[in-house]
């Protein structure tokens, strides 16, 4: 370098040249503009079930045979119940193959302690993580797009510590991918990149009251995998729930009804709003799982011939599944009739 001027001139040329030719170099490096997210293959999630033993069922539910004050029930049974139910479905090996990346989507919407029933029971989530790990999953991620400050939600719900103890990884949604709606080509969804990148997805909701939709369960739980201005979804909320279930269909759905939030949902905030159905249901058909939870975890509000919330009918209409869970092979213990 002879002079300052020469140095400056050369630097300018080099910078300009690099900037101008960067698309070329980038193409050599194999740039993926994955933010645009064209052609995401979502089907694999429900086509990819592994062969199950012949006695396996497609919907399993279990209720603790506890008489007496429900609040005294020992929730230590949560993990064991989860294990039993997954076992009935044919074991985690039916859903998770060795080397898979698994994304578990519990409800971590609120910064509330587990006893307020605003978030999924941490022991249930922890056990799912443990089972997925045992089935050979390479990486088990757990995340949600929380409604309140995410770190506080992860911590206060105790799901964060439970997942880390079970060998999973808490992740915060950061990147979203544009995905076209399966129903209306003019509509796009922003979907959590972690959710899309995972090989298998498990929706682990908690049974809660919701003023607008009646209840929030495994299908509504998928709102937590959506980015953008989510608050607009309420204007066509039943259709949005059903459409997301169609678009994002999880490999396995579970509704934790050990505790259920009976009113003032979905936040709760007082123990007086919490009921104790002491039940868990899981299955491969989100509509069946939700319908079962509506019948059995809301103290008879959706019992008998009572009309189910509209999102159930919408989901059937969109071909997500069937509300009548008896159409599938099922094993339900502790529910009387």
């Amino acid at each position, binding site marked *: 370098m002879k002079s300052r001027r020469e140095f400056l001139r050369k630097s300018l040329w080099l910078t300009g040249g690099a900037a101008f030719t960067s698309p070329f170099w*980038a193409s050599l*490096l*194999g*740039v*993926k*503009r*994955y*933010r645009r997210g064209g052609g995401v293959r979502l089907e694999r999630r429900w086509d990819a079930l592994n062969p199950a033993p012949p006695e396996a069922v497609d919907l399993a539910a279990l209720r603790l045979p506890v008489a007496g004050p429900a609040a005294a029930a020992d929730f230590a049974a949560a993990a064991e119940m989860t294990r039993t139910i997954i076992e009935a479905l044919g074991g985690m090996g039916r859903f998770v193959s060795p080397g898979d990346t698994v994304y578990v989507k519990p409800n971590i919407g*609120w*910064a509330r302690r587990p006893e307020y029933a605003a978030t999924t029971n941490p022991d249930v989530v922890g056990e799912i993580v443990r089972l997925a790990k045992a089935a050979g999953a390479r990486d088990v991620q757990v995340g949600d797009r929380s*409604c*309140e*400050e995410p*770190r*506080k939600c992860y911590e*206060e719900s105790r799901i964060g510590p439970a997942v880390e103890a079970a060998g999973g990884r808490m992740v*915060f949604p950061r*990147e979203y991918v544009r995905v076209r709606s399966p129903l209306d080509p003019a509509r796009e969804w922003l979907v959590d990149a972690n959710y899309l990148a995972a090989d298998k997805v498990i929706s682990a909701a908690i049974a809660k009251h*919701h*003023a*607008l939709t009646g209840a929030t369960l495994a299908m509504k739980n998928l709102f937590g995998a959506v980015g953008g*201005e989510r*608050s*607009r979804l*309420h*204007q*066509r*909320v039943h259709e949005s729930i059903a459409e997301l279930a169609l678009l994002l269909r999880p490999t396995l759905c579970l509704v934790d009804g050990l505790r259920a939030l009976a009113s*003032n949902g*979905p*936040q*709760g*905030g*007082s123990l007086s*709003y919490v009921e104790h159905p002491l039940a868990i249901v899981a299955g491969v058909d989100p509509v069946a799982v939700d319908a079962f939870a509506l019948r059995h975890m809301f103290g008879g509000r959706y019992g008998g011939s009572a009309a189910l919330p509209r999102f159930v009918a919408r989901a059937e209409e969109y071909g997500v599944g069937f509300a009548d869970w008896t159409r599938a092979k099922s094993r339900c213990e502790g529910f009387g009739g």
Partner: protein
Amino acid sequence: MARRKSDGRGLAERIDREILSAANLRRLSQVAALALFLLLVVLSIQQAGGVQVYPGTLFLDFDPLLLAVTYLSAHALEPALLLSLAVVVLTALFGRFYCGWVCPLGALQTFAGWLGRKLRLSSREARSGYSRLLGMKHFVLGAVLASALFGGQLVGYFDPIALLTRTVTTALLPALAWATDSLYSFLGRFDFGQVGNTALGVLYLPYEGAEIAERFHQGGVLIGVVFLALMLLNWLRERFFCRYLCPLGALLSLFARLGLVRMRPDEKCTSCDACSRNCPTGAEPGSLEGFRVEECVFCYTCAERCPEEGLAAGLGRARAAPAVPDRTRRDLVLGAAAGALFLPLVKSPWRPKRVAPELIRPPGARAEQEFLSRCVRCGACMRACPTNVLQPAVLEGGLDGFWTPVMKYRFGYCLYGCTLCSAACPTGAIERLTVEEKKARKIGQAFFDQSRCLPHAFGRECTVCEEHCPTAPKAIVTRAERVLLPEGGEAVIHVPEIVPERCIGCGICENVCPIVDAAGVRVTSVGEARSEENQFLAR
């Protein structure tokens, strides 16, 4: 530049004298103090069970000026601030070592000065000596103390610790977040392979864990520009802020006069005056008579610059009359007069007749007048806030409320079970609250704007506000109602209503409203628990 003679000295001796020199130890101490300060500011957001995990306001607690102004303005001694008496006692014994060795803003000034010299934009020796203007900081101190006595609060704009806490929170960390996010969203367009992507993700984790991302503060750019200007002024004069403006330095200088220690030349002195010419604070250590111990921060630059190594700290109080008249008292009194005038000047022409609806203070904030007299604008609450709702006020609270914390629900909302801001406040402007007290503390009231709210205005389903309302039972309730649709026909929809007694003004409804520009439900300050006048419900 005078360089040391390098005669045939042993290695050990050289290490001892040149590497472990007092000036280098001072630099080490400055770097450590600055690092600790930044770490504590960044970590002050970490909480467990409603209290801060780390003492995020440690440096503020050790600031005797804050103790003094809180005592003068609120007539109260904050227990945590009593720690700062240690600094006063040590300064009275050993001089202003705090300014030279501990103060994080001092460290940044030293660094800015060094940078200016490296870039050859400034020189240490230019105009380094004593100047009448050194007394300006006493004027500032007088103004700060007098304004506090009369219920105003100027200290936050000048106190170095409050200034730096605010700057780091509202300007530097958001700038860092913006830069990091830009970098990562650029890098996110490339695929670095399994290993590369994982490595990038891992590098992002501490940044994400430190909760710096996605924070924004209104007017942070002004706070940043003020800081930048203060840094650049170091190229005009070494340690510009410390010399001319710092009220904390001025306060400590009053005690430093009692000090037992001073820099003094020994018998090797050739009166070359290199020490005085290089002194960053105008203390002029070269002259036995003219040395101003109250300006000296024991930075040991003089000792480093002395060609004879003939300067060291030693015991000695012998302080002859200074070469120029001591104007400290005059400056203090003049400043006090200005400070006493400050409050009426900014208050009378700007005081609204009624309470400002948008002036929503954090839960636990004291009644407005006492809040203003206690708040030192340090922004510690803004850093501690996990949702970014706390913003430095511009004119929401009048001229005298500039940069005080105010809730802005388009930035965030008040998290129901969180008490971090009240835990972070160093002066008790925000009272300590327990979580249960916090959940019941009303800071404002939500109102529906029926011309904008979707169910009210258009007959559309929405009620996102009701979903998010955290109180038990909910302050926002819904009724199934038959409404006429603007496009004709009718529908049964959920219409949200507010039960005013249940609303605590947390603002999550306003924050999550799908009408993102001016929400269909908005919170104003009326009904806030801290005010007797700003009420609307019959009792």
